[in-house]
């Protein structure tokens, strides 16, 4: 295209160069005929100085015209390219917005999935304390009737015994009522967006609560699921400044993964294998270490480097969003300044080690 566009210009330039050179040559040839005159011969009018000047002016005009045409073409091309660029930038921006939206939806889906598991576990957890609250309340109502009879009969000692039973039962009602309250609060905390606010938290209690919720949630989802869990907590862990529902989410994810690993191994080795998940806490100098160990299928070497990548999962499609460990990693390291590490041996065990700093007392 460039060559074709420049061809007219080159032709014009060549033509005028030829004319100028020819005109100068003719002028030089004419000089000997008439050295004392400044007039040119009328037979070479098309090469006279005014003609050359005219040619030059025409050339200049054509050149200017060509430059203007080219400039206009360049401007149009520029505008077209700019528009194309803007369109692509807009398309990329739209794609980025869609990706961000999809990411947030997946994160929300991950939250809802874990919330769904929690809900099932919580339904079980709540019906147990409700069983005691309802029944001990009914018992006390009956006992009050019995006490009235005893008083009418003058049987004071029996009435006193029954009052002791009422007192014991009231203690159970209060205990199990508070237990149900804690369960509901835990569920609400999990469903709310994280406030990001750190509060003093007894880590052992948080681990205990979420381990049970994970266990019962999985039992609710999969009737064949069964595993042993062991808790070995250091009493000296004390209070840590944590965003409770975020660390709870980390625990839930790690416990769910551990139970999944042992369940998968159980499917392959039904005889003689006891699926076990062990949770230990230990107070160190400036931190608290939590170890979540399972005797499951382990993590293959080729995969270990990717486990914290968003959307990476080894579970079959539809069974996991691949965001659990990625979110957990961010919560522990970025939000809490802690560390998360893993040691594993394929077909033998996996152990996640979470270390959370203990902030110095003010």
């Amino acid at each position: 295209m460039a060559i074709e566009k420049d061809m007219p210009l080159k032709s014009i330039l060549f033509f005028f160069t030829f004319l100028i050179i020819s005109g100068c040559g003719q002028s030089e040839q004419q000089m000997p005929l008439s050295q004392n005159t400044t007039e040119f011969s009328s037979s070479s009018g098309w090469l006279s100085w005014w003609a050359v000047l005219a040619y030059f002016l025409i050339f200049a005009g054509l050149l200017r015209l060509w430059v203007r045409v080219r400039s206009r073409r360049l401007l149009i091309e520029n505008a077209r390219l700019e528009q194309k660029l803007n369109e692509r930038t807009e398309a990329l921006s739209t794609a980025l917005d869609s990706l961000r939206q999809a990411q947030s939806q997946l994160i929300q889906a991950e939250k809802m999935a874990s919330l769904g598991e929690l809900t099932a576990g919580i339904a079980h957890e709540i019906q147990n304390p409700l069983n005691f609250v309802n029944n001990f309340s009914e018992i006390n109502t009956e006992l009050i009737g019995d006490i009235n009879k005893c008083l009418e009969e003058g049987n004071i000692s029996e009435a006193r015994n029954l009052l002791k039973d009422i007192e014991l039962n009231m203690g159970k009602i209060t205990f199990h009522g508070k237990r149900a309250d804690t369960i509901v609060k835990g569920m609400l905390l999990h469903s709310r967006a994280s406030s990001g606010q750190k509060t003093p938290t007894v880590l052992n209690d948080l681990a205990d609560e979420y381990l049970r919720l994970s266990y019962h949630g999985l039992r609710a989802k999969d009737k064949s699921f069964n595993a042993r869990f062991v808790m070995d907590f250091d009493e000296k862990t004390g209070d840590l400044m944590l965003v409770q529902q975020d660390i709870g989410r980390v625990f839930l994810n790690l416990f769910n993964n551990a139970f999944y690993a042992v369940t998968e191994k159980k499917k392959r080795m039904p005889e003689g294998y006891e699926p076990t998940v062990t949770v230990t806490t230990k107070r160190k100098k400036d931190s608290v270490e939590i170890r979540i160990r399972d005797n499951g299928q382990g993590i293959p070497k080729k995969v270990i480097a990717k486990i914290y990548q968003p959307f990476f999962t080894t579970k079959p499609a539809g069974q996991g969003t691949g965001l659990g460990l990625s979110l957990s990693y961010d919560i522990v390291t970025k939000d809490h300044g802690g560390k998360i590490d893993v040691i594993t041996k394929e077909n033998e065990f996996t152990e996640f080690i979470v270390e959370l700093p203990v902030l110095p007392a003010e």
Partner: protein
Amino acid sequence: MKILVVDDERDIQQLFEQRFRKEIKNGEFEFVFTFSAPEAIQYLNRIQHEVVLILSDINMPGMSGFELLSEIKKKFKTPPPIVMMITAYGDDEKHRQAIELGADDFLTKPLDFHILKTKLKSLE
């Protein structure tokens, strides 16, 4: 009638003893409590012939109520004790699974002791 109750919730013992106070006092029922499935099997291995009825929770850590049920039906046949499963869920699927495994009845939490008493008295 000797009844074995299997549940990991320890307060179940006080609940049953309160709810069946009169029946226990007049010797109508005798309750024995174990807090895990393996513990229940150990007890049955010792004095199985005395136990007429087993009330078992389904969701227990380690060995579940359904696994206990399978074990009971396999090992303790003469005479086979009556087994009622108790669970917090109460859905049709769990009911069906319990019946398929040989459970004689199915109860849901929160327990309605009026219904339980009626069922137990009908077995006497």
